[in-house]
């Protein structure tokens, strides 16, 4: 017969630590009490990673490259790749200029009161947990700051469309919440139909839920949804994605699944634009 708990297992210590860890968990989930600690740790980890790479690994790889006489070509290739990525994003900005710079009274007021002066900034992705992106509800991306930290609320785009928005910054890195994150919601539209597209926690998938008795709209798979600009964060009229599926849930509500046009896995550079880009 199996013994449930042998005599020398310190039950009191286990009980105390179980209570303590539950308390930590509650505080983190309810009040995000440990977010600054985590961000500080992340930032320190990234800095040390970068330092170790630059001091130890880069000279070794450079030495190897020198011996194989490919160093210059590799450098040139890398710089061309970076330049191409940046050009792709800038092209996106130019192509969508009419939509991005659309006049909006509410936003103009915001711009006038805003202290942000730069039009847009190119940023390099510092870390992206692809495993968490695929497995879990939380979809976050970290960017290296340029000379100054990115401001909260900045829209993050890549060459395919909107990725998300800046939620938090410290001296070294800024956190981006992706539009597919379970806690993210953005106002979108299709012709005269408006709804809030919430992240589902699945890669690139957003969901619009509405009562079909109130909105007698009909949609078909493949139709495009655009940002409505009503939230004041994202510019109006930008392509968000197309309808992937339509279903009716148990509460008789219609759920439209939208597949985001932008894939965060394709590029190492993104662009951060602020509301005063609309000027």
């Amino acid at each position, binding site marked *: 017969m199996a013994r449930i708990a042998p005599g020398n297992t310190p039950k009191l210590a286990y009980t*105390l*630590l179980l209570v303590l*860890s539950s308390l930590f968990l509650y505080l983190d989930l309810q009040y995000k009490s440990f977010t600054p600690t985590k961000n500080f740790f992340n930032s320190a980890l990234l800095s040390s990673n970068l330092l170790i790479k630059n001091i130890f690994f880069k000279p070794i790889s450079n030495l190897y490259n020198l011996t194989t006489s490919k160093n210059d070509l590799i450098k040139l290739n890398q710089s061309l790749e970076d330049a191409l990525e940046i050009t792709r994003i800038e092209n996106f900005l130019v192509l969508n200029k009419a939509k991005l710079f659309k006049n909006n009274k509410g936003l103009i007021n915001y711009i006038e009161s805003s202290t942000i002066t730069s039009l847009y900034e190119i940023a390099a992705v510092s870390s992206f947990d692809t495993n968490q992106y695929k497995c879990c509800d939380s979809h976050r991306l970290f960017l290296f700051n340029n000379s100054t930290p990115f401001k909260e609320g900045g829209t993050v785009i890549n060459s395919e469309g909107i990725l998300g928005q800046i939620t938090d910054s410290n001296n070294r890195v800024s956190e981006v919440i992706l539009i597919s994150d379970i806690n993210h919601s953005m106002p979108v539209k299709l012709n005269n139909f408006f709804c809030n597209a919430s992240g589902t926690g699945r890669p690139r998938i957003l969901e619009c839920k509405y009562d079909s008795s109130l909105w007698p709209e009909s949609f078909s798979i493949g139709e495009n949804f655009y940002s409505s600009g009503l939230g004041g964060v994202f510019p109006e009229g930008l392509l968000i994605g197309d309808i992937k599926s339509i279903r009716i849930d148990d509460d008789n509500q219609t759920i439209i699944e939208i597949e985001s046009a932008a894939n965060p896995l394709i590029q190492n550079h993104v662009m951060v634009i602020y509301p005063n880009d609309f000027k």
Partner: protein
Amino acid sequence: MTLNNLFKIFVTIISANYLDSRINIFMLDYYLSFSLGFLVFCFWVFSLPNNIYALTSFIIGLSIDLILGSPFGLNALLFTISSFVIHSYRYSFRIFSLLQITIFFALLSSFYLGFINIFMNTANFSYLLIFLSFFLNGLAWILIYILMNKFKKRFYR
């Protein structure tokens, strides 16, 4: 337990966690998920029951929470619970066959995965993933058991 040994244990768990994150990207499409880091931790508690108790489990769990960016206290809670369960059955393991031990740890890893998914993937919780991962982690346990025993004989003093 010396600090040196604790460091070795910690490094093996972190390495297994890193391996987890690299492999699981591809496995998740097939409703499979490894929990190698957790299984390595279980191995150490299983093979060194007199050295790893509540506080060590709690600290290892908390460090993993910090490194992985998961909700603070989640791994600490699960590692402490698992450590207690393993300690509770440590005398029974002596009469268990390898198959029974494998089933025990596969069940424990399913419990771990289920709990992690409840907190981190609530909206897309999948029973299929937990069920299929039970078999995968059972197989992984056998491999970990063999490899870690070799590691322990060679490096653990």
